[in-house]
């Protein structure tokens, strides 16, 4: 072999390096942090069933008991929602909460797919002390991980009781299992909507040039677009203007293409179903004969060249880019879905290219149903697991968040720092508003406002607290303040102060006894899931096909579509779903 000293030294050098790396590896393998254990429940923590001081009615702040209850305790928490600005409760609001309750949260927020994570949590048997599983609660309940909160609420949570009032029944899990497993923290109690973000949208410049015509039916919408397009087929750079563009990238199909079919034909939003308000009969909403006419109208729009032929091919960012270019005259979407595009326009000062919201329906006989009231709609929320070392402390912590003091902390912040009282009215100082607008991430990290929103139950917009101020920072005067001048001009021309004024209000509709059908939990293993997925496949294939086809083919395609649905078992799906709806009605009303 011939041992040349040089190469042997080289070998030794590499060997040494390798050994070093391996030793380092061993060293690090040995040291690994262990996750924080829930921490002992600091001392006695007044365990037993202490009767709370304030009994229900007076809505005073605090959790009732004083003294030994405030031993510091840490709970582990997992949430299926991300929260990237989480500061381990070192922010202003977080510290205030810890001061008031003694509780610190060791929190983990979702980064990937919650369904997988929760399945792993359920399978492993190591549960965090508090958990917010959103739609995957079922897996945990089946695994026996969740505590029934009914008694805890009854005995230790006056603020929660007061907040939910007579809606407490709606927190129950199911008829077979009327336990309360989560406190709903995503839905608001007493929510009033102050503005409309849906309906059909038209650019301000379009309605202005046409003299602010009445935009009430799809025909009005169509005519407005057609007229304007005739006068202005291209923009100033020669690029073609687009009449209507739809947002059909993956799940946004629901928002822009299929949901409007029921909003425009007198049906409320119950997910993929239409539920008769009197008989509770359930239909897959695409099977309503009237919705066929809505899609026929879209087909007509396409035939007339008023519909963007890329609607079903473009990706979300292409859609936004089109909007940002100002060339799209009309939209059928929700504000939060196209907001980025509109923001880009506003940033360039092109306010007349912004969009107004109009309560368009198929014909005059229908009312636009965006605001059909659902009553309080509990769904996702926070629960306490069987691994929790001190459920009473835990419920008291959650109760604090539901108290007036907790609500104000969550929405407004710390008095003096984030808001002040002027003549008894709660006001956010200019400087703070500026900061919020210019550096929202930094602001949230420091203040903590909004970070605890889905940790506790809360009141909705428009609800007043004991001082006569709003609980939240969204109220009518503030909404109007966010409108730019062009918007105000358009609104004035239509005799409204906010877009919502143009829409039928909640009072015009009866409250749905089943709440919002789309948040009824479907049991994980049921055939219903598979059927729903199958119908979705068929619908997502057939609807674009029907819309883009030549008008003479529309009826044929629609009939084929309906036949396909029947062959796939749509009636069975409707029946199964109806059972769930009826179960919920019973659960909530008896």
């Amino acid at each position: 072999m011939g041992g040349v000293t040089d190469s042997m030294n080289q070998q030794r050098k590499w060997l040494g390096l390798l050994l070093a790396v391996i030793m380092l590896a061993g060293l690090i393998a040995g040291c690994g942090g262990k996750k924080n254990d829930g921490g002992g429940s600091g001392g006695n923590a007044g365990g037993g069933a202490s009767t709370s001081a304030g009994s229900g009615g007076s809505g005073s702040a605090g959790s009732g008991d004083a003294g030994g209850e405030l031993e510091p305790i840490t709970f582990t928490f997992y949430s299926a929602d991300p929260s990237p600005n989480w500061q381990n409760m070192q922010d202003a609001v977080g510290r205030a909460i810890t001061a008031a309750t003694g509780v610190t949260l060791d929190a983990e927020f979702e980064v990937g797919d919650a369904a997988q994570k929760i399945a792993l949590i359920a399978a492993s048997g190591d549960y965090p002390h508090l958990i917010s599983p959103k739609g995957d609660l079922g897996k945990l309940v089946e695994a026996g991980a969740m505590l029934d909160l009914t008694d805890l609420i009854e005995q230790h949570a006056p603020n929660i009781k007061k907040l939910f009032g007579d809606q407490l029944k709606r927190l129950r899990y199911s008829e077979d299992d009327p336990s309360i497993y989560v406190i709903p923290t995503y839905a608001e109690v007493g929510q009033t909507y102050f503005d409309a973000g849906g309906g059909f949208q038209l650019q301000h410049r379009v309605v202005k040039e046409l003299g602010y015509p009445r935009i009430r039916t799809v025909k009005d919408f169509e005519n407005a677009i057609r007229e304007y397009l005739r006068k202005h087929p291209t923009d100033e750079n020669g690029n073609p203007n687009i009449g209507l563009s739809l947002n059909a990238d993956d799940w946004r199909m629901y928002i822009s293409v299929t949901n409007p079919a029921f909003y425009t034909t007198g049906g409320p939003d119950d997910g993929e179903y239409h539920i008769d308000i009197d008989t509770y009969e359930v239909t897959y909403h695409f099977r309503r004969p009237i919705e066929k006419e809505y899609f026929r109208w879209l087909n007509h729009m396409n035939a007339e060249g008023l519909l963007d032929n890329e609607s079903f091919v473009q990706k979300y960012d292409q859609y936004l880019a089109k909007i940002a270019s100002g060339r799209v005259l009309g939209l059928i979407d929700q504000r939060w879905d196209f907001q980025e595009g509109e923001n880009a326009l506003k940033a360039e000062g092109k306010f007349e290219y912004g969009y107004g919201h109009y309560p368009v329906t198929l014909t005059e006989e229908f009312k636009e149903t965006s605001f059909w009231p659902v009553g309080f709609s509990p769904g996702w929320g926070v629960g306490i697991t069987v691994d929790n070392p001190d459920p009473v402390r835990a419920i008291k912590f959650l109760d604090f968040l539901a108290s007036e003091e907790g609500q104000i902390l969550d929405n407004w912040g710390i008095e003096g720092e984030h808001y002040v009282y002027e003549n008894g009215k709660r006001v956010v100082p200019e400087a703070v508003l500026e900061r919020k607008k210019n550096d929202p991430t930094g602001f949230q990290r420091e203040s903590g406002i909004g970070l605890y929103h889905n940790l506790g139950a809360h009141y909705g917009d428009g609800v007043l607290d004991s001082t006569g101020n709003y609980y939240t920072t969204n109220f009518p005067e503030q909404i109007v303040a966010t409108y730019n001048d062009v918007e105000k001009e358009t609104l004035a021309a239509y005799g409204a102060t906010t877009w919502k004024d143009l829409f039928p209000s909640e009072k015009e509709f009866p409250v749905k006894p089943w709440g919002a059908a789309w948040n009824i939990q479907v049991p994980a293993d049921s055939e219903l899931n598979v059927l729903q997925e199958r119908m979705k496949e068929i619908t997502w294939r057939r609807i674009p096909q029907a819309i883009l086809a030549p008008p003479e083919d529309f009826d044929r395609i629609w009939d084929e579509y309906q036949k396909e649905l029947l062959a796939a078992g749509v009636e069975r799906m409707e029946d199964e779903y109806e059972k769930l709806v009826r179960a919920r009605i019973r659960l909530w009303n008896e």
Partner: protein
Amino acid sequence: MEAATTTGKMTRRERTVRFFRTALRNRWLYAMSLPFVVWVFVFSYLPLWGWTMAFQRYRPGRPFSEQEWVGLDHFRALFQDALFYQVLRNTLAMSMMGLVAGFVVPIFFALMLNEVRQMLYKRFVQTVSYLPHFVSWVVVAGIVTKMLSTDGGAVNGLLLWLGVIDEPIQFMAKGKLFWFIVTLADVWKETGWNAIIYLAAIAGIGPELYEAARVDGANRIQQIWHITLPGIRTTIIILLIMSIGHLISIGFEKQFLLGNNLVREYSQVLDLYALNYGLGMGRFSFGTAINMFNSVVSILLLITANGIFKRVTRESIM
């Protein structure tokens, strides 16, 4: 030497002795491989108990003994689903096209790149060529969609300008074109990265072979054909066998991102189907059943490919 019996065959005892003698001789090799075998057993084979889930109605959180057994129900449901076959077709079509393109192009590129004599340029191009590998599919799919769009897309712009077509073509809406678009996009993204192995293999070929060929009067193309290609033959075949095994599990990200509702029939692949109807619905058992199906098919493909190559080229994995 052991004394053989008169017929020339060894007794069982003799076979055993020979076995242990060889084992002793191989002791270093055993020492160098057994720890890893154990390793692999622990991390890759132990979890296979999870395949029992495919025969149960698995509920996470319940101990093994409390799970409900349903036999072949999930497999029955799988094979009776018409969508499954459509999805399978799409998967195989795209993976086969991808297999061909994913070999021919990177090898060709590696060969060409190897012929570049300017070292600096060669290394520069090589570095740049793999960059798309690091750009996520979300971004690449976005670029491809924009380039093929009818509203100002580059491809349509070019074709119109050349006078080849009168009106822009909506490429992304044509189901029949979808498989080509996916394959081309994949070539664009992965060629540079895939070529790295081949470049490394080429680097291992001794320069004296080229010298000898040059002396014999071979030109560059002949050198490639007679020296370079044969020199990397083993590597190509090994990679080919392994890729054939992966034919059925190609992921779904690029098909999902490049697809849309108009081409659904051509864009849905098996892994997406498994996600939608399995894990996405909390149906772990069903998902596991598909997983098992994948594994069985993959292994069959592997064994077949291995066997064929072994016979024809005398190169193989196993």
